[in-house]
């Protein structure tokens, strides 16, 4: 299905990533956005509030993030494609309902413009430390899809894609962007509606009496319904059988929850998107995502000038994780270097998949800024000089980290 021309703001813009994501949501057919403004995601919500009423997208500023996410789940069940927009503190508040949405197999998109944390952290500056929260933030087992765009154009493109994935797999899709990309302004081209593919909701079309809300298809995804159609829906966050009725038996628990996990796992090859460059024959592969991948480019360039063979692998989708690909590359390369704006999150998945066949070097950053490319270059050089694979995850000491450690955590004002 193609996008509705009414909701596609075709044109060439010079806008930031937040706004581009907002426009992407409209183009994808998002009809309801509930949010509670929070820096640095506010511009995305503003973009929806500004353009939404003209294209038939309803918005509401809720009383808090608990309300925002609950409202979008409600709207999803009345038939709308929905999104909420937030950053760190709001994201934490939403976790309970994210699990509820996953349990109900509700398609929805969550845009998280990550900022420095924990707590209030640095509201106006960047971070990438919500990555594990995006995967496991709510209690219980479930799987999500998480995407990390690296430019305003990608914020538009991948917001559209996020909606499509949400409809296809009926799961939460997180756009795990960051303040740098959210507040980065670049040219964004929004194509004509006929060039934008949108995934329609997979609605049940049979007789009401035959409808079983959680009866899966071959790809493990059940057909969706909406309220008000005479289906007498019984939908609950309690572990349920195919009819949606509560059951507490361990067999049903497995059937219900295992499927939430497996519908993503068995389809992961269709979901995962990677961007690789210079991988063949590379001695070191830099694995990164979001803004860090653009910063790493400079470090890679510097390392290449020293004659080191470096390849780059960008995780466009971070979750589900590309286990097989990392595993395969671990047999061919000496080391993975992982710059991320946290003290080690995605790097542990790289290490898990490297299986000790290649060194895994973390280039950490505490947030409120991006890596110094020279640190990435030095980490690459360090990694390539190891005679045999290092054990576990090696944390590279960056210039910034050294300055903190050397002062014994006491910084001169």
């Amino acid at each position: 299905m193609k996008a509705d021309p009414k909701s596609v703001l075709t044109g060439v813009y010079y806008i930031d990533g937040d706004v581009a994501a907002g426009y992407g949501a409209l183009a994808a057919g998002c009809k309801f956005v509930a949010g509670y403004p929070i820096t640095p995601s506010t511009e995305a919500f503003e973009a929806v509030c500004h353009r939404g009423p003209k294209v038939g997208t309803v918005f509401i500023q809720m009383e808090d993030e608990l309300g925002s996410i609950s409202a979008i789940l409600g709207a999803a069940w009345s038939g709308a494609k929905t999104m909420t927009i937030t950053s760190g503190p709001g994201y934490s508040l939403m976790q309970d309902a994210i699990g509820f949405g996953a349990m109900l197999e509700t398609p929805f998109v969550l845009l998280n413009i990550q900022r420095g944390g924990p707590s209030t952290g640095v509201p106006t500056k960047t971070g990438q430390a919500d990555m594990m929260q995006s995967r496991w933030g709510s209690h219980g087992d479930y799987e999500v899809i998480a995407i990390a765009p690296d430019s305003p154009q990608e914020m538009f493109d991948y917001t559209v894609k996020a909606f499509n994935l949400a409809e296809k797999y009926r799961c939460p899709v997180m756009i795990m962007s960051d303040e740098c990309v959210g507040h980065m302004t670049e040219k964004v081209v929004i194509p004509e509606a006929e060039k934008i593919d949108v995934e329609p909701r997979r609605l049940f079309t049979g007789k009401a009496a035959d409808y079983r809300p959680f009866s899966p298809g071959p790809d493990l995804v059940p057909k969706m319904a909406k309220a008000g159609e005479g289906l007498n829906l019984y939908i609950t966050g309690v572990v349920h059988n195919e009819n949606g009725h509560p059951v507490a038996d361990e067999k049903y628990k497995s059937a219900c929850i295992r499927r939430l996990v497996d519908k993503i796992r068995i389809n992961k090859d269709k979901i995962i998107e990677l961007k690789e460059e210079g991988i063949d024959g590379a001695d070191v592969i830099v694995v990164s995502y979001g803004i860090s991948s653009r910063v790493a480019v400079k470090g890679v360039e510097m390392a290449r000038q020293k004659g080191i063979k470096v390849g780059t692998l960008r995780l466009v989708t971070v979750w589900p994780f590309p286990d097989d690909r990392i595993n395969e590359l671990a047999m061919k390369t000496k080391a993975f270097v992982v710059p991320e704006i946290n003290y080690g999150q995605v790097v542990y998945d790289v290490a898990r998949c490297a299986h000790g066949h290649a060194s895994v070097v973390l280039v950490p950053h505490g947030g409120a800024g991006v890596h110094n490319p020279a640190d990435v270059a030095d980490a690459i050089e360090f990694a390539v000089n190891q005679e045999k694979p290092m054990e576990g995850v090696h944390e590279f000491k960056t210039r910034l980290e050294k300055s903190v450690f050397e002062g014994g955590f006491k910084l001169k004002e």
Partner: protein
Amino acid sequence: MNSIIEAINKGIEQSGLDRNKISIPSDIPFEPETVKSLGVDYFQVPRGRAIAFGSGLKLGNPELKIIPVVGDLMTLGGNHFVHGTRRNMELLVLCINSFVYHKVAGKSVPVVTEAFSPYSTFEEPFNFPHLGNSCGAVYTARWTALHTAELAKSIAEALHKRGMSMIEILAPGPSYYRYVTDLDSELLQFYFENSTVKNDEDPRNAAITADGKIIVGKFTDKERATFIDSYNIQHTKILGDAFTPHGSLPEKTGGGNG
């Protein structure tokens, strides 16, 4: 709880509305058979989120009539009630108050349940109708599980209100007392002896106190622009023809026609 379900059923019946267009988001569990017999759509949401979830249902499809059922004295999600009422979201909130009464030392005092509160409670219950009215609810009432006919009538009336209506329902805790029929009937006896109907009473005077009678009745009934009305008016004013109103227009009352 069964008597409340029965009142909801009768209320919907009396309202004449299409059951297919009614959704009940609830943080209190209903049995699947109950939902089937009501002929509505039902969503059991995390505790405290029925009003927020219901707001989304309504905004996603304004044709729907939404009856959020909330319990736990709205300790969770009370803010959704306050702000949902302020913005006059078109919902009928049934607030199940299981603050029951028990005689301690010869005097009736509110307890949550004996199971949770072995030494009874010293906290005062909310005056929900007063809270709702202060926040701008267009309809407020209070009934006990004993007043099923009055409750059904209130539900029927409130379902035709444009805006946030709220009915507080004093009832035994649904799960703890489900099998304890003795206590159930004892409590209903208590409601019978201790409640007094005062329709049109100022909700400010309707606080539940340990010594006084429980005042029940339909307290307030007024008109105010709903959230969707205000949303439409505001954007039409600013954007003119560029804006297509959402849902039914203010002059068309009742079920709405999308």
